[in-house]
C-alpha cells in the first residue's frame, strides 16, 4: 500500500451564514465562562445541604437550567419540586428530552424560554396538556434544536470552546428555527453546522452515590450528564446515598463527577421518583398517568400541584403521600424484575 498525501488547504475566504433566526438564550463565549470558572471555589469541604437551601442559594429568577437524566429517568425531582415551591420565575431550560421534568417546571410556571429538542411529550406515556398549552400559547419562547445538538452544545462547553461542528439539522425547518450557523470545514470544504456552546447557569443531576464533597458515581447510562456537569457554572447534586470518600478512592475510574464541579450535595433517597432509577426502582407509571389526567383541567391540576408540591414541606412527604414504603417496594421489585 502506497502512502497517501493530503494537500493542505489554501488560505481562503468563506461565508458564515446564520441558518436560523431564533434567539440564543445563553452566552457561548468560552472566555466569559473561563472567568467564572477561574473564580469558582475549589474548596474540598462538606457540601451537604437541603434541597430548600440549595435552591434558595443557587437558583435565581432568570437563570438558565440544565437538568440531568432523561425525562423520567434519573431526574432530580426533589430539586425540581423545590424550584416550583420557591416560585422561581423566568427560568431558561435546555429541553434535551425534558418530559416529566419539563412537566413539573411548567406546572409551576417557572420557565419562560426553552431550547427545545423534545418537550411536551412523555414518550410512550402520551402528551402533557399543560406543557403543550404553555408552548402553544407563547408563554414559553422556543428555539429549536435536536437531542444530539443539545448534547454537543454541552460538550463544547465542557471542552471549553465556544462552538462545535455537527452534521445534523442541515436542510430542515428545524435548523431555520434554531440559532445555529452554517459554515464549512477548513480541511475538506464540506458544509457543517456550527453549534454554540451551552453553559447553563445551574445544572441539576441525580446520582446513585456521592461523598459529602460531591465526588459522584452513576450506574448505567450517563445520558449527557458527563458533559452537563462540566458545562454548568453551578452544579447541584442529589444522591440516592451519601458514601464515604474512601469508597470513591477505592474505584477512582467510577467517578463521573469530581467534587470541584459541585456546589451542593443533597441526599435524597428515591430522588428520581416518579422516574426510573437504574438498578434501584422503576418509574411509577400510575402516578405519572395521574399527573397527565390532572392536567386535563386547570382546576384539577392546581389542586394536584397544591397537594403534591406546595402543600408538602419536602420530598419525603411527597413520597409518603403517594404510597410511601409499600409503593416504593413495588417499584423496587419491578425494577429488579421480581414483579412484572
Amino acid at each position, binding site marked *: 500500500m502506497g502512502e497517501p498525501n493530503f494537500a493542505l488547504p489554501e488560505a481562503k475566504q468563506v461565508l458564515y451564514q446564520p441558518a436560523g433566526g431564533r434567539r440564543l438564550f445563553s452566552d457561548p463565549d468560552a472566555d466569559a465562562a473561563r472567568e467564572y470558572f477561574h473564580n469558582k471555589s475549589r474548596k474540598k469541604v462538606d457540601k451537604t445541604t437541603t434541597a430548600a437551601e440549595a435552591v434558595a442559594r443557587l437558583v435565581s429568577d432568570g437563570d438558565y437550567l440544565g437538568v440531568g*437524566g*432523561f*425525562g*423520567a*429517568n434519573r431526574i432530580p425531582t426533589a430539586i425540581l419540586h423545590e424550584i416550583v415551591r420557591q416560585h422561581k420565575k423566568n427560568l431558561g431550560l435546555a*429541553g*434535551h*428530552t425534558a*418530559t416529566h421534568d419539563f412537566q413539573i417546571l411548567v406546572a409551576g410556571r417557572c420557565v419562560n424560554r426553552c431550547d*427545545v*429538542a*423534545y*418537550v*411536551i*411529550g412523555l*414518550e*410512550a*406515556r402520551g*402528551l402533557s396538556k399543560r406543557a*403543550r398549552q404553555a*408552548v*402553544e400559547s*407563547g408563554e414559553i419562547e422556543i428555539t*429549536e434544536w*435536536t*437531542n*444530539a*445538538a443539545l*448534547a*454537543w452544545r454541552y*460538550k463544547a462547553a465542557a471542552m471549553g470552546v465556544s462552538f462545535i461542528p*455537527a*452534521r*445534523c*439539522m*442541515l*436542510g*430542515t*425547518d*428545524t435548523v431555520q428555527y434554531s440559532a445555529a450557523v*452554517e459554515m464549512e470545514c477548513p480541511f475538506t470544504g*464540506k*458544509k*457543517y453546522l456550527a453549534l454554540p456552546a451551552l453553559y447553563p447557569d445551574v445544572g441539576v443531576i441525580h446520582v446513585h452515590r456521592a461523598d459529602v464533597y460531591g465526588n459522584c458515581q452513576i450506574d*448505567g*447510562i*450517563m*445520558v*449527557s*450528564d*458527563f458533559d452537563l456537569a462540566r458545562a454548568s457554572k453551578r452544579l447541584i447534586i442529589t444522591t440516592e446515598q451519601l458514601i464515604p470518600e474512601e469508597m470513591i478512592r477505592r474505584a477512582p475510574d467510577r467517578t463521573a463527577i469530581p467534587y470541584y464541579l459541585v456546589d451542593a450535595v443533597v441526599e435524597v433517597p428515591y430522588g428520581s421518583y416518579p422516574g*426510573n*432509577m*437504574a*438498578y434501584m426502582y*422503576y*418509574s411509577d*407509571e400510575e402516578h405519572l398517568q395521574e399527573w397527565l389526567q390532572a392536567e386535563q383541567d386547570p382546576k384539577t391540576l392546581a389542586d394536584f400541584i397544591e397537594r403534591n408540591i406546595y402543600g408538602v414541606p419536602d420530598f419525603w412527604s411527597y413520597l409518603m403521600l403517594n404510597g410511601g414504603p409499600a409503593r416504593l417496594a413495588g417499584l423496587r421489585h419491578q*425494577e429488579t*424484575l421480581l414483579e412484572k
Partner: protein
Amino acid sequence: MSYNRMELMISLASRFLEDESIVVVGTGAPCAAAMLAQTLYAPNLMIMFEAGGIGPLLPSMPISVGDSRTFYRALAASSMPEIMETCQRGMVDYTFLGGAQIDMYGNINSTMIGSDYSRPKVRFPGSGGANDLASFCWRTMMITVQDARRFTNKIDFITSPGYLTGKGAREAAGLPPGSGPYKVITDLGVLGFDAETKRMQVESIHPGITREQIAANTGFELLWSPDLDTSEPPTEQELAVLREKVDPYRYIIGRS
C-alpha cells in the same frame, strides 16, 4: 390466522432488518419490530437506544428510550453522545422514525401543525433525536397508519430530513451522502423510494387493500413499482412471537 394492522406492520418491518446490522430504535412498534427480527430473522441484529443502551437483552418493552430496560444486561450502557456519535460516524445501519406528516420525499414533521410557527395550531414534542438519526443513519424507516392528511406535500414543518427536494438535495444541504429514507410501512402497503427521483413509491399492497385505496389515502401523487407486489401477511410464527414473547401485554399490538 387473523391479525390486526399493527401486527401486520410490525411483522413486515421486522423482515427488512438484516442480520449483523445495527439499528437505533425508539419505544413502541419499532422496538417490537426489532425484537421480532432478533427472534426470527436476525439473531445478531444489534439494538441501540439513543440515551445510551447498547445491545440489551430486553426483558420487556421499554416505556422510555432511556429507562433501565434499554440497557438491561446490555453489552454497554453508554451515553447520548456515544450513540449519536456512533451514528454520525456511519456505524448505524437502520433507524425508525414517527411523525404527524410525511411528504413524497420522506421528509417528516414531528414539530407542529399550522402556518404560524409562533402560534401553532398544534405543537408536538419536536425532533428529539429524530432529526439526528434521519441525518446520520444509513437507512431510515417509518411505521405509520396512512391517510391523506398524514401523507401530504403540504407539510407544515420539516423536522427530520428525508430526501428534502429530491435527488442530491441531502448532499447539497451538507448531510452525509448515501443515507436517507428506506421504507415506509403503513396499514395499506409498503412504500420505498425511487432511486432516480427519490420520490415515494409503492412496493407492495397489503392483502385486501386496493390501489385506489392507497391513492385515496395519499395527499400526493405516488409512484408505483414496476414489480408491484402483494404484501406477505404475518406468519403464524411471527404472530406467536409477537403475542407471546415481544408484547404479551399488548401495549403496542393492542393499539389498533
